[in-house]
């Protein structure tokens, strides 16, 4: 479903963020993308998210060939992707419910469907009871779950998470990883980028390990 083929990303002449990275991810598969800071994890996610363009190589996701995707089609691609950030990126003046509803609103879904789907997504990640709270009223763990609910609200082809536990303590981090695994068991295709290699290894999922932009290990 996701095919990353000999992808290289360079910034100027000197910095090579990714070098000849190739892998495939099947529908319903989950992988932890591990590596130290600066290994190229975020760069790879940004390329899949089409925030940036590879210097060479190809990326395809379901029906989308990212190399040939015109700028005007990027919103369409993103409606089929879920993205979880380290810093949650919730809109402060919207309630948790309204934040989760956002991707469905921009996709032009009917209000009745939005209400139903947001309820489902929030129940799936266990924050339904906090639906009327504003982001400032949520704990870090809760805020990240709301962000996760937003990412799965539109039932994406692929769920991407970039250091989602970066602002969480160990317990919340583990709980969140378990939640990703649960979503994967329910059918979601997931890539979680993290520098917590040891914790990621505990879940028995595929590990894609990057070092200095090179894919050093692909352990299934």
């Amino acid at each position, binding site marked *: 479903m996701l095919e990353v083929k000999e992808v290289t990303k360079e910034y100027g002449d000197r910095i090579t963020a990714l070098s000849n990275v190739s892998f495939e991810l099947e529908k319903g598969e989950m992988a932890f993308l591990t590596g130290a800071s600066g290994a190229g994890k975020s760069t790879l996610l940004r390329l899949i998210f089409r925030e940036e363009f590879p210097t060479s190589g190809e990326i395809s996701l379901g029906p989308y060939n990212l190399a040939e995707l015109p*700028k*005007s089609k990027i*919103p*369409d*691609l*993103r*409606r*089929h*992707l879920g*993205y979880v950030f380290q810093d949650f*990126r*919730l*809109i402060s003046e919207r309630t948790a419910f309204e934040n989760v509803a*956002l*991707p469905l*609103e*921009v*996709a032009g879904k009917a209000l009745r469907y939005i209400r139903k789907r947001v309820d489902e997504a929030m129940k799936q990640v266990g924050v339904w009871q906090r639906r009327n709270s504003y982001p400032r009223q949520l704990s870090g763990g809760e805020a990240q779950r709301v962000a996760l609910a*937003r990412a799965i609200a*539109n039932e994406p082809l692929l769920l991407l998470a970039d250091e989602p536990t970066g602002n969480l303590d160990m317990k919340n981090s583990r709980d969140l990883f378990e939640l990703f695994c649960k979503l994967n068991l329910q059918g979601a295709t997931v890539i979680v980028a993290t520098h917590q290699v040891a914790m990621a290894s505990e879940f028995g999922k595929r590990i894609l390990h990057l070092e200095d932009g090179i894919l050093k290990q692909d352990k299934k």
Partner: protein
Amino acid sequence: MRYLIKTIAEIRRASRHQPLSIFGTIITILLAMLLPGLFWLAANNLTAVEKKLKANMTVDVFLVDDTSQAKIEKLRGELLSLEGVSDVIFYSERDALFKIRESFGQDIIQDLDDNPLPASFSLVVDDTVLEPETADSLVAHLSALDQVEEVVFAREILYRFSGITDSIKRFGIVIAVLVILSGIFISANTVRVAITDRREVVEIMQVVGASRTYIMTPFVLLGGLLGLIGTALSAVLLRLIDEYVSNNLVELQFLNLHEIIAFILTGLLLGMLGALLATRKFLKI
């Protein structure tokens, strides 16, 4: 409907977060649009005066003394058949004397023994004759007619007036273009501040797949609304100025309904265009 709700929310938020900027933009657009509005008003009124002048424009053909009645009738026929002449009025020597008395009073000619005034034809002409070349050839033609002593066609005043009206119109257009450009800039600047204030939200919108239209619409409508309010207030102020001048100086004719709508729509469009430029630049489209 959702766009409308989003736009209202965005305007309320912008008014709360940047009230001075919003207020300042409306006032600046109001004052800026007043200038082309005044030129428009002036041009309209001058055009109306010019039309009136044209309608009253006559060519006076003075006849030699003692022209016989038969020759007068023959000449009348000839004059009526001329192209561009819509009517011919004859003034006898007595009529001329009467006109002078009416205009200047009895005293001016009471010491004269004879009536020195000649008989004349007054030609009512249409617009085609008012063109300089046609007018010159008409005067030349009339002057060459038998029994014609002199031809007076006081058209210079009309040409001078038309020249002034044209200059004001041209100057008004230049001013309008400059004002519209500055209005676009003002609107763009305010919307740029509004969208920068919402940078995080806009980025999140992009992440969840919002289209450019979805993101841009509330900001473009915000710019349009600022332009609309500023120009509508400008039209109100223009009306007050018109009333003041009409009551105290000279009767003015205000813009008609279509012109007022066009004036306000210009403000709406310049506001939207400025906002469009600002959002496009922000979204790097």
